[in-house]
């Protein structure tokens, strides 16, 4: 009774006392979560036969005052992702904290069947943010992480900087887990994710491969470097032998129901991106144009873009027509006569160039659409557009055809270009 009275008089003091008695002692000796958890910056998943290998790029604290990040790669194997993660935890001796993971790299092999099954554990694992970058690679994911850790700097960050750039300019959307799932659950279950590869340093021509430039980017032979994956130095990044380097050619892979169906080159992506409002800065090059008696190659950069898309059903045929207004800027002229002046003469685009560009862009677009059509993958929201604008007709149409996946086959794409010199 006396206790109750005391409690009534100053209840919060008692609560504070309880806190001090019960919660404070363990907290006093707790080293803090940042020392109890392995802070993972990037995740790599490989699959070998029935075994998964999950690798973590973790950050290792170093008692320096320079505050640079030192990373190392730790991996675990197991029959399931959960098990391999558990094994990796044992190796690390810490619980793994995924909340700072910014990148997830998966090996192509995982994409052989529905990848969402494999990464289910990770996306359920609540602390892995759905905004984690999700990319696919031809080489073992572990090796990508090893390479990035050996680059001495915060490559985990660099990696996502590169990909963020791509997301703005190249991919239809972010290449994140979220974007993958969005595509996965969309009407055509198609999603687009980024693609990285590893190359030997010597054989590489330019780190600038990440540009959106056409054709010029280095093509990578996928098969060549996967063999030495395990043996290549783990921590040192194999500095003694051939140095590896992460290359981003601006490629992407197309997934249908989580399965890899097609690898898209930067060129294809450009075609798809024509309908992407945000994606600008692409360069269109037209070759061998007759101009003033000489042959020139002209490169134009897309500076502005205005897109008007309309959908309709004409005689039972779905028509997807887009009207593109492109503001182009002449950036380069290559040819025999060097005297052509960029600034003045080309304020109006000569008709022959216009025609060539028109052809070029339309070719790109058709190619891209053909790929989408072939794979029944709708990554630019064609279904949605029809659904929204012509709901009744769309529903009826879908009902009439065998599978709604085939819808894309029936769609008639029309593109209408209006080119302006900027």
């Amino acid at each position, binding site marked *: 009774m006396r206790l109750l009275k005391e409690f009534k008089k*100053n209840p*919060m003091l008692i609560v*504070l006392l309880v*806190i*001090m008695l019960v*919660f*404070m002692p363990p*907290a*006093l*000796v*707790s*080293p*803090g*979560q*940042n*020392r109890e*958890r392995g*802070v993972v*910056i990037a995740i790599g998943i490989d699959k070998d036969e029935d075994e998964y290998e999950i690798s973590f790029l973790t*950050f290792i*604290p*170093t*008692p*320096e*005052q320079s*505050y640079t*990040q030192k990373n190392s790669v730790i991996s675990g194997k197991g029959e399931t992702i959960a098990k391999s993660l558990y094994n990796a935890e044992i190796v690390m001796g810490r619980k793994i*904290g995924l*909340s*700072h993971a*910014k990148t997830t790299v998966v090996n192509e092999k995982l994409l052989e069947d529905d990848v969402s099954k494999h990464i289910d554990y990770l996306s359920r694992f609540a*602390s892995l943010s759905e905004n984690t970058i999700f990319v696919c690679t031809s080489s073992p994911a572990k090796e990508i992480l090893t390479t990035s850790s050996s680059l001495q700097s915060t490559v985990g960050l660099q990696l996502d900087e590169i990909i963020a750039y791509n997301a703005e300019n190249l991919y239809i959307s972010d290449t994140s887990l979220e974007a993958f799932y969005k595509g996965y659950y969309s009407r055509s279950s198609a999603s687009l994710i980024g693609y990285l590869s590893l190359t030997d340093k010597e054989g590489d021509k330019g780190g600038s491969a990440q540009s959106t430039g056409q054709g010029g980017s280095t093509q990578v032979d996928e098969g060549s470097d996967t063999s030495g994956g395990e043996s290549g130095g783990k921590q040192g990044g194999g500095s003694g032998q051939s140095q590896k380097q992460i290359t981003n050619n601006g490629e992407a892979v197309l997934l249908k129901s989580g399965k890899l169906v097609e690898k898209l080159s930067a060129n294809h992506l450009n075609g798809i991106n024509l309908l992407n409002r945000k994606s600008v800065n692409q360069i269109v090059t037209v070759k061998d144009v007759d101009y003033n008696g000489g042959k020139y190659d002209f490169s134009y950069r897309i500076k502005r873009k205005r897109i008007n898309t309309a959908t309709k059903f004409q005689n039972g045929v779905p028509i997807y027509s887009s009207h593109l207004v492109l503001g182009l800027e002449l950036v380069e002229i290559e040819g025999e006569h060097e005297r052509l002046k960029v600034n003045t003469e080309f304020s109006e685009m000569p008709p022959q160039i216009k025609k060539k560009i028109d052809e070029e862009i339309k070719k790109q677009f058709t190619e891209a659409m053909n790929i989408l059509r072939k794979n029944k993958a709708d990554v630019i929201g064609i279904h949605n557009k029809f659904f929204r604008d012509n709901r009744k007709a769309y529903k009826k149409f879908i009902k009439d055809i065998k599978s709604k996946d085939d819808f894309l086959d029936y769609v008639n794409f029309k593109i209408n270009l209006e080119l302006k010199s900027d």
Partner: protein
Amino acid sequence: MSYFNVEEKLEEYKERLNDSVDYSNRIYEKGEQKICMIFLKSIIDQELLSNAIFLPLQTYEDDLSIDILKNKIIKCSEVKDIEEDKVINEILNGRVVIFTNFSDKIIAVDLFKFPTRVPTEPPTSPVIQGPREGFVEDLQTNITLIRRRLKTDNLVIKSLEIGTETKNKVIMCFLKDVANDKLVKDVYKKLKNIKINGVVDSYYILSFLEERPDSLFKQIGGAEKPDIVVSKILEGKVAIIVDNSPIVLTVPFIILEDLQNSNDYYTNHHYSSLVRIMRLMGLLIAILSPGAYLALQIYHYNILPLNFLITIADTTLGLPFTPFLEIIFIFLLFQILYEVSLRLPSYLGLATSVVGALILGDTGIKAGLISPPGVIIVALSKISLYTIPEQASQITVLQVIFIILGGSLGVMGVVAGLIYMVNYLNKIDSYGTPYLAPYSPRIPSDLKDALITSAPTQMDKLPKSFSPKKSKKVEVKDEK
């Protein structure tokens, strides 16, 4: 027939005042007539005594009577008859008590004087611009300082005596046409009921005035400058001046008052809004930052941005302390340094700051005892505390509580503690005024002089929080 046996009286009072060294008496004889004076020479003006009493007495030729003595001889402003049982009291209050053998009346002459300071700028609230006078220990001077600023017949100055031993004079000051009647009555009642043996400083009666004396939070305002007190009286508050104390108390008190500063009114109001918001932020940083930092470090590494996490992880690696102990250690270090620098004479202050900043801080980090982020967080909160120096002691206690909460319970502890604190503060009504007014509850008309201030020309209303008798500062009369 003699009314008093003067010699006997002298002996009697000498004994009653314990034969103190400063006890003095003089007997003046003029024939049969004897006049004896008793006083404490330590607290009276001796020059005035000889000029105002002795000199006229010696030059007076005729027969003396008590009336003549009172009205013609003694040249002093305050001369009064007293009862015999008050004699000791009067002597102790710096009066010269006069017995005669020709009257049964006792006279007390006020010659009270003791060394006082001149009103100087108080060290705790210096101003850049604005009046520099501060209150002093002398009650009379303090009343003068207020009276000089409030030339109105509405000003009421009421007096009481508190303390069975010290017998301090306590004065209540308020404007009778503004201050709420209930408030005045309540304060008077509270003052009357104070039972204490001595009041050395106004802070002695402070907790008697509080509605919740056992509460951590300050419920009575205190000011050392007459301009501040006068502005508060003008708002309808009651000022309480205690003799021998340079600190004047004001009731009711709201927390906003400590965010305000007299400087605010002497500068541009836009600037003062900014400064007040800064003070609030300082208050929050001071209270919450160590607790929140601890919570983040122990429980919520996942909310920290990666780069900050790396910094923390790098710097805390290899420390002998766990995060909790580290913060407590640094906190103690700062608190000790603070106490030391307060007590040390100023010429040694430099030495402590060198020892504190260089040796303890820098070397502590280099020696791997404490981590730089920890030092920064604690230092930040310790410095922010002095954006509101009036609340420094309360904030320090709160810091400790929030360190315990944050360290033991994480961010939930911190937020829950904050809510509990605000809830608790909302329960306190200081003499009918909500403690967190005018924000909770919101009193729209008072917001003009809250965190964001309006131009003085727009502040034409008296703050409603203190429920004043009239609403406008100046009642405009119709000119006809």
